[in-house]
């Protein structure tokens, strides 16, 4: 297990001050700082379904579900998918409304190499929840 993975697993925000450990993940760090500010994401609620081994990094199926009543007062506002070792860590941002019914997405993403994929949900009151999964990639997915 790489040192960076341990840090990220310990909590995305907790890893932010440790700049040296994330030297090659500067964009991810800045991105998370912008999204989270001073808040540390909580564990739970976010479930990522992604293969542990992806033969083709060009198209890796992923499903994310966030547990939420999805009411006007309490719903998932945003879900960010991040791939920490891609040329650019942003994958997609999904914006839900109470009329979404569920906070669920299924899609296919590119992974440049084996890495940890993060899902960060921001609730309607601003509370962040995060989860991550390690994916082994056999053939890289950015055609570079």
């Amino acid at each position, binding site marked *: 297990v790489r040192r960076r993975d341990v840090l990220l697993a310990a909590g995305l925000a907790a890893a932010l001050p440790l700049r040296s450990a994330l030297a090659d993940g500067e964009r991810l760090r800045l991105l998370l700082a912008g999204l989270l500010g001073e808040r540390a994401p909580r564990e739970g609620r976010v479930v990522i379904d992604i293969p542990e081994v992806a033969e083709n990094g*060009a*198209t*890796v199926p992923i499903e994310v579900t966030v547990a939420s009543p999805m009411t006007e007062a309490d719903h998932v506002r945003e879900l960010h998918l991040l*791939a920490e070792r*891609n*040329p*650019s860590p*942003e*994958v*997609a*941002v*999904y*914006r*839900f*409304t109470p*009329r*979404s*019914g*569920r906070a*669920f*997405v*299924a*899609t*296919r*993403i*590119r*992974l440049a190499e084996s890495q940890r994929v993060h899902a960060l949900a921001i609730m309607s009151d601003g509370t962040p929840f995060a989860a991550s999964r390690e994916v082994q990639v056999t053939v890289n*997915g*950015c*055609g*570079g």
Partner: protein
Amino acid sequence: MTTIQRRLRVPATAVQGEVIEIRTLIAHPMETGLRHDEDGRPVPEHIIRRFVCHYDAEVVFSADWHPAVSAYPYLAFTTVATETGVITVAWHDDDGSVHTESATITVT
């Protein structure tokens, strides 16, 4: 403007209040800007930047995409069947075009 093939799958009927799944697909290359052609020239980035789903006049779900979304992007999500109406999805291409697809849902 070339027409890009796309698919929108919405249940034809639903019971009011039911959470329905919407499945979408568009035949778009999602060029990352990192690839080179046969002659070694870089292929410029060309992607769908934004995805929006309207249920009649209201936005019920939207997304911002980056080059890490795979080519021929597939996206499934849900919405609450509120009333008989039209569900429209729009893919906003960074070449300025907007590709749309609509389906009618009958809610009882």
